[in-house]
Structures are given as C-alpha cells and as structure tokens.
C-alpha cells in the first residue's frame, strides 16, 4: 500500500508540472459554472427571442449528464497523458518490476484517480446540476461514468504511442459521449443502434430508471474494458 500511495504522489507531482493538465482538472468546475449559470441565462434569451416557453430547459438533464461524464473524462485524460509519458520514458516497465508491481501501478494511476473523479463528480453535479437528483441516482450515475472512463483511459493508452497520439485518440474517444444524446433525440427502436455506447444506457437509466438499462450499462462497460484489456496488458509488458 505504501508503494501505491508513493506512486500516486508521483502522479500528482507529474500533473503539477504540466500546465495543460492542471487546466484540464479545472474544466469540470468551469463547465459546471457555465452550465449552472450560463445555460439558464441563455434559455431566457432564446425563449424570449423565439417566443417559446422552453427550448433548452427540456434538455437540462442532458447538460447534467454531460457534467457527470466530463469530470471523470478529464481526470482520465490527464492521467492517461501522464501514463503515456511514463511509457515513452520506459518508466512503466521499470515500475512493474519494483514492489509496486503492475497491479499496484494500475491502481495508483487508474484506481485512485477513478475514486477521486467519482467523488469530484458527486460534488460537481450536486453544486451545478440544473435538475433535481436523488442521492441514489447521483451515486449510480457518477459511479457508472467513472467506471466507463477507466475503459476510455485504457483505450487511449493502448492505442497511442506517445502524448501527441494520445491527444488525437482522446478526441476520437470523445465519441463515446454521443450515447448520452441519443435517448433525448431519438425515439423508438432505432435508438438501440447506439446500445454499444455505455453512455446511451446511462442516459436511458436517468430518464426511465429501468433495470434493463442498469444491467446493460454494466454489461457494455465491462465488455469495453475487457476488449481493451488484452491490448492494454500487452502494452504494459513492453
């Protein structure tokens, strides 16, 4: 445990030395301020201009879901960039043959970061949400988005050789958020074409709270992580 905490402190030290990554950690809070105060303000302007009673307010839940997803996403992105830097410098290979071990390294990078991003998600959504959230729904959604982002982090790490490629792959992986939008704009069975996106089931879960969505989000997220894990393990051994 001592080695894991020491390794995690090194992660924080690495993050603190990279200005871009520091800014990234504050993106969820900046987004929170914008969503919480900017969106209702825009809604006032738009409804007045269009002579409608509501335009954006129908999608306030969607904004909240983005907020719940963007927090772990930014955390996982920052951690993955650090991991890619360590990979590029052959440091991961060395750390895995110290008492930290490979599993300890993964816990110190992805495990602890996921727990922290989960807690930060809870706070961000609590303070900046535009809709009412029950405690159960809040914990459930933040937990699921945090787990999803472990898969995203593993995917970016596996598919990139260095930080530059990592940034490009991270942009590509942003497509995973597409699933959040689908239940709000598509109805009928056609929406299930997006069932491979865990975010699709997360969004459905918040709208309908059915057991199928809960089972599916777990199943699809685990399938994604297992699918990426083979390449991830291979890369860790290089």
């Amino acid at each position, binding site marked *: 445990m001592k*080695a894991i905490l*020491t*390794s995690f402190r*090194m992660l924080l*030290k*690495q993050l603190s*030395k990279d200005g871009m990554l520091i800014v990234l950690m504050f993106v969820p809070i900046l987004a929170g301020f914008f969503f919480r105060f900017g969106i209702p303000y825009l809604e006032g302007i738009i409804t007045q201009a269009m002579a409608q009673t509501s335009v954006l307010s129908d999608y306030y839940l969607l904004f909240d879901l983005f907020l719940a997803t963007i927090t772990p996403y930014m955390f996982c992105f920052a951690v993955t960039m650090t991991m890619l830097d360590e990979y590029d*410098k*052959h*440091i991961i*290979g*060395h*750390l*895995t*043959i*110290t*008492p*930290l*071990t490979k599993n*300890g390294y993964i816990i110190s990078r992805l495990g602890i970061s996921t727990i922290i991003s989960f807690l930060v998600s809870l706070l961000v959504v609590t303070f900046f949400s535009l809709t009412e959230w029950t405690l159960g729904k809040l914990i459930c959604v933040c937990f699921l988005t945090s787990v999803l982002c472990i898969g995203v982090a593993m995917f970016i790490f596996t598919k990139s050789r260095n930080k530059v490629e990592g940034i490009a792959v991270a942009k590509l992986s942003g497509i995973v958020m597409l699933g959040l939008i689908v239940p709000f704009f598509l109805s009928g069975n056609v929406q299930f074409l997006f069932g491979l996106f865990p975010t699709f089931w997360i969004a459905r879960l918040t709208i309908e709270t059915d057991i199928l969505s809960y089972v599916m989000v777990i199943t699809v997220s685990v399938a994604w992580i297992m699918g990426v894990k083979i390449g991830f393990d291979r890369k860790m*051994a290089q």
Partner: protein
Amino acid sequence: MIKVKDLAFSYTPKPFIENVTFEVNNGEIFGFLGPSGAGKSTLQKILTGVLRHYTGSVSVNGVNVKSANAAFYEMIGVDFEYPSLYEKLSGNENLIYFASLYKNHRDIDALIKSVGLQFDANKRVYEYSKGMKSRLNFIKALLHNPEILFLDEPTNGLDPSNALMMKDIIRLEKSKGKTIILTTHNMQDATELCDRVAFIVDGKIRTIGTPRNLIMSRGAAQITYSYIDESLEKFASVSIDSTAIDPSLLAAISCNKLSSIHSSEPSLNDIFIEITGRSLQ
C-alpha cells in the same frame, strides 16, 4: 538460485524462445551473449516476471516467477538497456522516489558518488548526457541492495573510463555475494566479467560455459615470434603447447636472437561465430 527448464515463449504464433534450460548458481555472474533480436532481453523479461505467458518452469531464488509479487521484487534489481527516469526531476529526486518504493534502501549519496554524479545530482535528468543517464539508471537497480541483479547492456554508450567504473562496481557487487545476470552483445565485457556465458541465437541457447573454457575449446593459442638469422629478421609461429619442441624458437632463445614474441588467443567473439555462424556485433 535461478533454474530454467524447457522454457518456451513467443510474442507471435511463430516459435521464438524454445527448449531453454539452464541454471545459475548463487554468487555467479552469468552472461547472456547474443546479437540483437536473439531473445536476450525477452529472456530477462521472463526471469523478472514481466512476461508470464510462457511454458516450462522458471524459478528465481525458489520463487516461481509466474507468481512474482512485491516480495519477489524486493530481492531483484533490474537495469534495463534504456534509462527509465523522470526527466523533469533531478537525479537525486529520481533515486529518492524509486528508493521509497522499497522497504529498505542504501545510502543514496554514496551510490551517486560511486558513479561520479555527485556534482550533477541536483540537475534535472533532461540535462544529463546519455552516459550520465546510463550511470544513474544503473545505480537505480542497486538502490535496495538486491540479492540478484539483472543488467541489460550496462556499459552501452559509456566512454571507456566510465565503462571501467561500472565494471568495477559489478565486480564489487559480486564480491558481496550477489548473483548477477548480464545481458550483452559486448564480448569484451562478457569475457572480463562473467563466470559463465550462454550463447543465444534465434531464441535458443547454443552453448553454455566459462569464457576461458569456450576459448580454449577452439584449440591452443598460437605464439608468433621473430628472430634474427644471418642479419635477416625471420618470422615463425608455433602452438603454445609445442614451444618446447620448436627448434627455431629454442635456438633463437638460446642464442639471444629473439626480436619479438606475441601470443594470440581466439576471442569469445571468434568462438561465438564458430559455434553459431553469427556475429555478435
């Protein structure tokens, strides 16, 4: 100390490392000698528990490396071929960090001094030369005073004086009873340091032996000499085990006419080429 039996491993469906069997004794310096891509580093990764999808049995100090855990990594130290250092941190900060991953560690200042980096310890690593990084990386493997050292090309990229310094440290570690696995394609290092070497080509061990026995197995060394005969310098050579029956040599010595004498032994590289049909360099 290290026991490997019927080891086989490959990154692809095509066989790579096959039928590898050897043992390394306690306190021995054992060298893996082979050209690039022969499987030396892969073998080291297997021995250190990095690659675990192999067949056969591999145990290091009684531990099956497939179940290598934190306790296992307390007893081994590894110096990979490429430096693995945080470039934004100083040399000293790097060592403090890596040392903190272990239960106990050596005096960091003394280690830094042992490789002549005492005046550069507080510089950031990205300011280091290639040789300085190699030296820092080397002492990183010694930080926790491990029982077994795995050294991959430890003198690669070093100037002769620093290479000598590293070899002296390796000998010092051996004198303390450490078991050392040296992976190299530098036959000079292997000849100077290793108690035994294994020749590896295409993932297979072709032979194992002491450098001296391998060299001697090629036959006796030759002596080449020149002597003055009727005001002319003449040259001759004789096998070292036939010097007592070589009349020209005996006559030249008895009449004090010898002008030069040299012995020429085959190098480990010559033996390697003869046995494997491949060059080390």
